[in-house]
């Protein structure tokens, strides 16, 4: 790790590695689009459902939740600019997501310590590199002597291999953060209600560590070449 990252200027902004970068889906902010807005709204509703156990007007609740977060300003602005037909499509999709969620997720017992939008940031190489991710739902207390937490990601698109890698990456972040791997990682698909669950064998985590290091090295080379 100290190799490629050691060439970076420590005063510059760190290289942030997230799941998108790992699956080759680019870096930096994304241009708002309809699927992105839908995903954000589904995540907001999922959060509300886990927290309060019920959903009201899904579109209104989701828009209110997004509008309360400065970081979602672009998405909210994009949604506000949609035409009537696009709005109707989005509203139908969000209503479907909400109905599916409500039917699939019972009220989670508070004793399971459910927490949502749990940010994970792991600085490496003196902070020059930061591994970052957000678990949409974490269940269970931090590990005492063995894996004890479950991580859930929510997706509004159809399942892909990238989703599996993304949740494995979250598992890696949790391992680095808490000292033990999660006992399960899962992806919940809001469109269908399918919950894709798996355990994380050590070998898989090990492979992912190699991929992360390769990704960081590539990014370091790219930045070094740009600087030259």
């Amino acid at each position, binding site marked *: 790790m100290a190799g490629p990252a050691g060439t970076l200027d420590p*005063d510059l902004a760190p290289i942030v590695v997230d799941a998108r970068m790992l699956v080759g889906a680019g870096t930096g902010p994304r241009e708002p689009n309809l699927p992105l807005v839908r995903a954000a709204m589904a995540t*907001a509703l999922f*959060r*509300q459902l*886990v*927290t*309060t156990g019920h959903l*009201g007007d899904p579109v*209104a*609740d*989701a*828009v*209110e*939740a997004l*509008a*309360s*977060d*400065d970081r979602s300003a672009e998405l909210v602005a994009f949604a506000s600019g949609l035409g009537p037909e696009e709005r109707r499509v989005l509203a139908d999709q969000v209503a479907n997501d909400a109905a599916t969620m409500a039917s699939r997720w019972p009220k989670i017992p*508070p*004793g399971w*310590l*459910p*927490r*949502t*939008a*749990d*940010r*994970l*940031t*792991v*600085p490496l190489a*003196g*902070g020059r590199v*930061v591994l970052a991710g957000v678990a949409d739902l974490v269940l269970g*207390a*931090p*590990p*005492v*002597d*063995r894996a004890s937490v479950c991580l859930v990601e929510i997706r509004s698109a159809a399942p892909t291999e990238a989703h599996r890698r993304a949740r494995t990456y979250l598992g890696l972040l949790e391992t*680095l*953060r*808490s*000292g*033990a791997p999660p006992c399960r990682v899962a992806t919940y698909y809001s469109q269908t209600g399918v919950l894709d669950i798996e355990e994380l064998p050590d070998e898989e985590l090990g492979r992912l560590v190699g991929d992360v290091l390769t990704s960081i090295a590539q990014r370091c080379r790219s930045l070094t070449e740009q600087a030259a």
Partner: protein
Amino acid sequence: MTPTTLPATLLPRARGLTDALLAPAAPPPPPGLVGDLCRTFRHNLAETMAGHDGPPVRVDAFTIRTAGGPPRRTRQPEDDEFHWTPRRARRAVGVSAAAKVVGGRVRCPAQGAERAVVELIDDARRGACRPGSLGAWLETAPAGVVAVVVAEATAWATHLVTAVEWHRVGRPVEVGGTDRWWDLVGRPTVGLRSRVDARLTVGPLDRASTEPVATGQARQSFLTALGGRPTPGSRAELGLAALVEVLRRPSGPVPARVVGWWPECGRALVLDVGEELLTSTASAALAAVRDRLGCRKLHALPVACPPGTGSGAGTLSGAVPGASSPGTGTEGWQSGRMRGS
């Protein structure tokens, strides 16, 4: 920054953090030194404020973190306009929720967060909140926003509740509580605000006692949970709590240590409170005040020490390396002990 002292795989993390909080305290700085430090700080602060007028200047961890950032002339007006968001409310509500859990009033963080929000809204409805307060905002916030506040606070409270083995912590312990202020009254007034999540008693107390104990010379450990990850400026942010404490009561017991806990990355910074931490934090606070005043001549600013304050107190001057950029200084950072991965 010294290397990690706890291996990343050491479990449970809460045990290591609790050990750090409750470890026997190092000898406190000599009372004379603390008194000198306080006098010098007041003197330098008064000198910094001389010739300035305007609204009160408030210095808190955020001010220290952002001092040395973009010059004020390039900041946008909205940068200084505060408005509530769920993210900004998460700490206040989350700590209140954690206090309810640790105090045995609720069983888990989610219940604590929900109750904390309900209490805030009730206070607002009874007219017990001032306009612009968190309660006033929550009272008028839509259901979707209130749900996000509860969700954010639940996450914060869960991190705080699970960070420490509370059953090992004796009494008195204070989770949450009001912010502590120290003011230098003048024109304008300067206020230093410290905010810690938990105050634990260490030292000569019997930790097994569950009875409240008179303070005496018992000393306190402060625990503060922070978002993100540690930075070189974190040291001054954490040290502010200790500085405010000694400024408020220069002849009182000096806090034993300040522990910063970053749940997002599972790391902790343990700082023993001594001369070095207090002086470097005071320098950072002065730099933050100057930054707020728009004074950009920190390095050139002569800072006189009153006679007899000693060389240690003199290090509060603007000539302290890194004092101009408390958010990026590194010299003090190296003396902190990092725990966690």
